[in-house]
């Protein structure tokens, strides 16, 4: 298969299959062979972050070759019989290794569950199977969906982080190793890694997609969402995985009928959280972000600065996640298996244990503050089609790996310095209040690392968010840029 086909969008891959130019088996084999060549590192996965990748990206914990080819053969038989289940029919995908896949190991990124093979599918996997998509691989992630701790490298520059925790999913999408991907997000784990590698990633509204069969990090914060090479990919995938599921009582009976045509942008209103644009470390970055906003204005979008309320979002995340995670992982402490967690997670697991000790009244206080913040954010965002801020102020940082884990396993959502602490962050607010957010690439920093914008909408308004993303991508080509191979060291 020619190189460029690996980087096709979902629509492009679907057209390739529909035209008969390639079968699903051929397509799947091509991606599998490419993964064998470019991805498999000389060490087993899951693992700690390391430096001995030998040039491989290490985005895949498990490559399910046999199952993938069986599913692809089934897809081909159905296509031959005139049955095309959806636009995803026959397309190989990778899913973050948090979602259960029957007969394919699901490790949660931890050696504790190195050999855990579920006998059931997560709800999303069932829906993708129903859509005709081909499960190809389980993607690497930070252990137990921890932040910046995956083995996956950044294909733009191997010495840079692909952030986390959906690192393997986004890196593989951008490197043309999968047709599309599925990630999860609690506080930023789809959009942050998408930003680091220039992928398009969508965090849906909380409750849009069933979490049944997915490891819970935080019941009241976790979302599952699509990762692709463009905004349209995200919409097409979300349409297949969204919907009510009685096994996840946070889901609602609310259809998502995606429309690929974004419509006229004239008169759309975009709220700009200008304060976050000022967090960028370099003038180059600020210029890139401004040029992106200029694109929206040239399309006729009305761009207006907004202010977000300064609320103790770090305290809210810390409380809610440590209490909920600590409760969820009680068994790991009780049976001692927590001792096998990777060394970089020692502080994190101590945080979970501390969360179990926190008085319930304080957890409820956090949820009361969150209730107020939800009302405040709803009121602000409702005035616009969407609001926008840099997904992350800078390009991907250096991977700092030496003997042991050098990056402190602090709460990854804590702003790193006092200046950051004073600035409300759209992403953290959006995650707390359940708003959807789309991360799309918008340029590069001075080191050639991608920069990204996050477009956030009101609850259930993924279409409006995707409209803006698709319209932006119709005017630009950042999302079509590929990391040059051989990858830069």
């Amino acid at each position, binding site marked *: 298969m020619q190189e460029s086909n690996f980087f096709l969008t979902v629509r492009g891959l679907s057209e390739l299959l529909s035209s008969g130019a390639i079968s699903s088996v051929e397509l799947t084999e091509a991606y599998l062979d490419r993964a064998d060549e470019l991805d498999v590192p000389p060490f087993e996965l899951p693992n700690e972050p390391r430096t001995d990748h030998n040039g491989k990206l290490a985005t895949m914990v498990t490559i399910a070759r046999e199952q993938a080819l069986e599913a692809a053969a089934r897809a081909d038989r159905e296509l031959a019989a005139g049955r095309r289940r959806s636009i995803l029919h026959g397309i190989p995908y990778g899913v973050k290794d948090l979602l259960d896949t029957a007969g394919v190991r699901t490790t949660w990124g931890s050696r504790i569950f190195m050999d855990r093979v579920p006998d059931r599918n997560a709800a999303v996997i069932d829906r993708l199977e129903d859509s005709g998509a081909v499960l190809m691989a389980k993607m690497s992630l930070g252990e137990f969906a921890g932040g910046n701790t995956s083995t996956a490298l950044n294909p733009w520059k191997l010495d840079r982080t692909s952030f986390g925790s959906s690192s393997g999913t986004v890196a593989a999408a951008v490197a043309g190793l999968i047709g599309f991907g599925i990630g999860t997000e609690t506080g930023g784990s789809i959009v942050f890694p998408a930003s680091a590698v220039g992928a398009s990633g969508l965090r849906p509204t909380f409750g849009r997609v069933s979490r049944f069969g997915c490891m819970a990090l935080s019941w*009241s914060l976790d979302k599952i969402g699509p990762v692709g090479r463009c905004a349209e990919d995200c919409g097409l995938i979300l349409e297949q995985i969204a919907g009510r599921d009685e096994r996840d009582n946070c889901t609602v009976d609310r259809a998502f009928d995606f429309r690929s045509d974004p419509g006229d942008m004239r008169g759309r209103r975009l709220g700009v959280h200008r304060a976050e644009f000022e967090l960028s470390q370099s003038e180059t970055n600020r210029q890139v972000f401004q040029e992106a906003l200029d694109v929206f204005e040239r399309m006729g979008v009305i761009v207006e600065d907004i202010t977000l309320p300064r*609320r*103790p979002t*770090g*305290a*809210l995340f*810390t*409380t809610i996640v*440590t209490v909920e995670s600590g409760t969820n992982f009680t068994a790991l*402490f*009780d049976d*001692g298996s*927590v*001792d096998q967690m990777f060394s970089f997670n*020692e*502080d994190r697991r*101590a*945080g979970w*244990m*501390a*969360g*179990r*000790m*926190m*008085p319930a009244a*304080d957890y*409820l*206080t*956090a*949820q*009361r*503050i*969150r*209730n*107020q913040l*939800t009302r405040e954010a709803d009121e602000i965002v409702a005035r616009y089609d969407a609001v926008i801020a840099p997904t992350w102020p800078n390009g991907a940082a250096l991977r700092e790996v030496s003997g042991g884990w050098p990056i402190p396993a602090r709460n990854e959502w804590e702003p790193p310095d006092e200046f950051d602490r004073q600035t409300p962050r759209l992403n953290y607010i959006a995650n707390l209040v359940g708003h959807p957010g789309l991360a799309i690439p918008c340029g590069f920093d001075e080191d050639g690392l991608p920069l990204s914008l996050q477009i956030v909408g009101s609850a259930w308004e993924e279409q409006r968010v995707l409209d803006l993303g698709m319209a932006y991508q119709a005017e630009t080509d950042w999302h079509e840029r590929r990391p040059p191979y051989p990858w830069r060291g």
Partner: protein
Amino acid sequence: MTINRRQFAKVAGTATLAAAWQQACTDVDETGEVSAETVRTLLDAQGPRGIYERPDELDRLRVAVRNLIGVQAQLRDFPLDPDEQPLVVFWRG
């Protein structure tokens, strides 16, 4: 019947945990840290000490509890309307 402090703590359960947490807050106010003894009492109210029998892990947990007490202070300082409900209120749709 004799009963050691750990067993008593399990029996006393919530009351011990609440008292120990309060002691942890006092520790932080007075010394800036949570004492090892206070953390052990908190642990014993949870169940087996497990990895926290080890001094290095216990020290990590002391830091984690201290950090959470700082977070708790931010939450308790936040002015909330008395009518504000938490996002966990049970409802039947």
